[in-house]
């Protein structure tokens, strides 16, 4: 875990020593990129009231001051920021005003990704984002470097983490599938918030016309907020979505303006959720999300969710799931439906409740309007819980939940016969115990070479 230590590296005094002794510098454009957007915002704020009566002298003075102060600070910070690869960790030293030494150990690194925010992408630069076990999100960012340098550094960081020699070249990637950007557009159009806002806009227009009032700007609010914004946001964020497999795990690349990568090491996947809303059912579209541990989110446990497939058809889902779970096909596991009595508690949805389990994963389905499939590998089960409310007790039913870290996956076998719940609880506890002992450790790449006697949940 990277903690600021008291060891202040003598970055200032060795400026004239060997350039590699204290580490490399980041790309010279870094301070301008980091401060650039910020400076623009400040300038806009200060000069907003100058638009109508421009006082060029004042504008020039303010712009000059912002550039000098901001640029100067950025330049000095850049001069004193260095990074260095040691035998067991990456060390980043910053200074001179705020002194910080970050130590990022190779064996704690779970994923390293190269991202290109829009501004950096224009100049051909990239930023490295490292997910460190137990670390904060802000700890593991290093930017900016040229794209080639960033990729090389990424390869050098990942090799020791996977138990390979440090000079292993970048792992080749194979593109598994690409999501056509048009489909993202269509899927966003058909998502419930957008459709709802569209209908609201239509309703407002109709009412306004019927009442004989002129169409005011009020009409634009649901349109802009509910229809245009989600479309723009989803296209920018999810456009050009590509899933590829690499020895590091499944990798996704997405973004039209800024480009972001996300690596999903198989050992870190806590659960998977496949969902399909009512409108998407017309087109046979699904969405796949996973719970990933140690992605450096703000929450305590450091678990967040990642979208593996924003929209895809059944074949795409099968492809992605097979990459994540190997030879196991969670959708093919035979499942037990809820008893008829459950209809008293869920009149329509009871027909779609089911659970199933094989040697590796636990699967539940639910949903009448919006369908959902939750998959949890036994090895990732946290705790198992049985609950029964008074209505359930009257009917002789109970629910069994397999707990996973907070996220889109919510695996609950709802409204089961009590006897069935008893055996399900007992079996799940035992399966989780057996597979937890066997699950892969940190250096998962090395463990893949070792013989194992059964397909392990990846």
């Amino acid at each position: 875990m990277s903690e600021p230590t008291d060891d202040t590296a003598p970055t200032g005094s060795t400026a004239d020593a060997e350039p590699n002794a204290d580490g490399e510098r980041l790309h010279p454009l870094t301070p301008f990129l980091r401060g650039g957007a910020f400076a623009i915002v400040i300038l806009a704020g200060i000069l907003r009231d100058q638009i109508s009566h421009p006082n060029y002298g004042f504008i020039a003075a303010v712009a000059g001051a912002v550039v000098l102060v901001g640029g100067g600070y950025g330049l000095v910070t850049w001069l004193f920021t260095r990074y260095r690869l040691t035998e067991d960790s990456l060390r980043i030293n910053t200074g001179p005003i705020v002194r910080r030494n970050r130590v990022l150990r190779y064996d704690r690194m779970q994923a390293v990704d190269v991202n290109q925010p829009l501004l950096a992408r224009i100049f051909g630069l990239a930023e490295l984002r490292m997910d460190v076990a137990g670390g904060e999100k802000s700890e593991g960012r290093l930017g900016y470097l040229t794209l080639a340098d960033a990729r090389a550094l990424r390869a050098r960081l990942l090799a020791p983490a996977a138990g390979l020699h440090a000079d292993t070249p970048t792992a080749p990637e194979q593109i598994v599938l690409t999501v056509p950007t048009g489909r993202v557009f269509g899927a966003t159009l058909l998502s419930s918030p957008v459709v709802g806002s569209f209908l609201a806009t239509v309703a407002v227009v109709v009412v306004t016309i019927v009442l004989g009032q002129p169409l005011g700007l009020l009409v634009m609010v649901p349109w802009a907020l509910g229809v245009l914004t989600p479309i723009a946001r989803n296209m920018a964020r999810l456009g050009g979505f590509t899933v590829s497999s690499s020895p590091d795990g499944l990798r996704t690349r997405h973004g039209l303006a800024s480009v972001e990568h996300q690596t999903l090491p198989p050992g870190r996947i806590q659960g998977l959720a496949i969902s399909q809303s009512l409108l998407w059912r017309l087109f046979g579209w699904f969405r796949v999300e996973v719970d990933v541990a140690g992605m450096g989110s703000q929450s305590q446990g450091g678990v967040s969710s990642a979208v593996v497939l924003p929209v895809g058809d059944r074949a795409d889902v099968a492809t992605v799931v097979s990459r994540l779970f190997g030879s196991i096909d969670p959708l093919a596991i035979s499942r037990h439906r809820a008893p008829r009595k459950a209809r008293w508690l869920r009149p329509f949805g009871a027909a779609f409740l089911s659970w199933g389990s094989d040697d590796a994963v636990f699967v539940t389905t639910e949903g009448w309007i919006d369908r959902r499939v939750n998959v949890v590998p036994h090895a990732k089960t946290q705790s198992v819980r049985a609950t029964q409310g008074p209505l359930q007790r009257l009917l002789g039913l109970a629910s069994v939940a397999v707990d996973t870290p907070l996220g889109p996956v919510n695996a609950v076998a709802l409204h089961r016969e009590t006897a069935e719940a008893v055996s399900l609880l007992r079996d799940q506890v035992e399966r989780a115990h057996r597979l937890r002992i066997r699950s892969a450790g940190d250096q998962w790449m090395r463990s893949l070479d070792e013989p194992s006697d059964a397909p392990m949940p990846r």
Partner: protein
Amino acid sequence: MAKPLARADDDLFAPADATWTPVEPALAKVRRVVLGISVLVVAVLACIVLWLTAPAWTLALPILPGVVGGALGWLTIGRNQRSWRYAERESDLLVSHGVMFRSLVVVPYGRMQYVDIQSGPLQRAFGIATVELHTATPQTDARIPGLKPEDAARLREKLASLGNAQASGL
């Protein structure tokens, strides 16, 4: 007056293959004290409001609901305290509680991230504490209230060492 629980329910919420330890009756006492104070405060406030706004005879109105509510609460607290139980098995811990809403949680030792002991002033006065286990998810919600402090400390030591020994991270 409690309905005998169905046998299948017992199998689910109190499996026979574990030795179940109940919690201290002092837990019920603490909760009843809190209940009594709350009922009293609400009744006094209601009486004040009625005295200021309504004819004098209405002051008798809060009495019946207060007494009935207090009695029901008293009995429910007792039943609930008796329903709390935990069992230490070889590789996991079971915690079961509830009368209306029953629940059983099975927490493997290897999944425990940390164990807390909490004890408020009223609990300390009655000599009990609460042990809280945390896994990677807040859904686990494994708490055992109403333990004697020395039992709580012993349990925490045992869980901490077992958790370390069987830890498998995420």
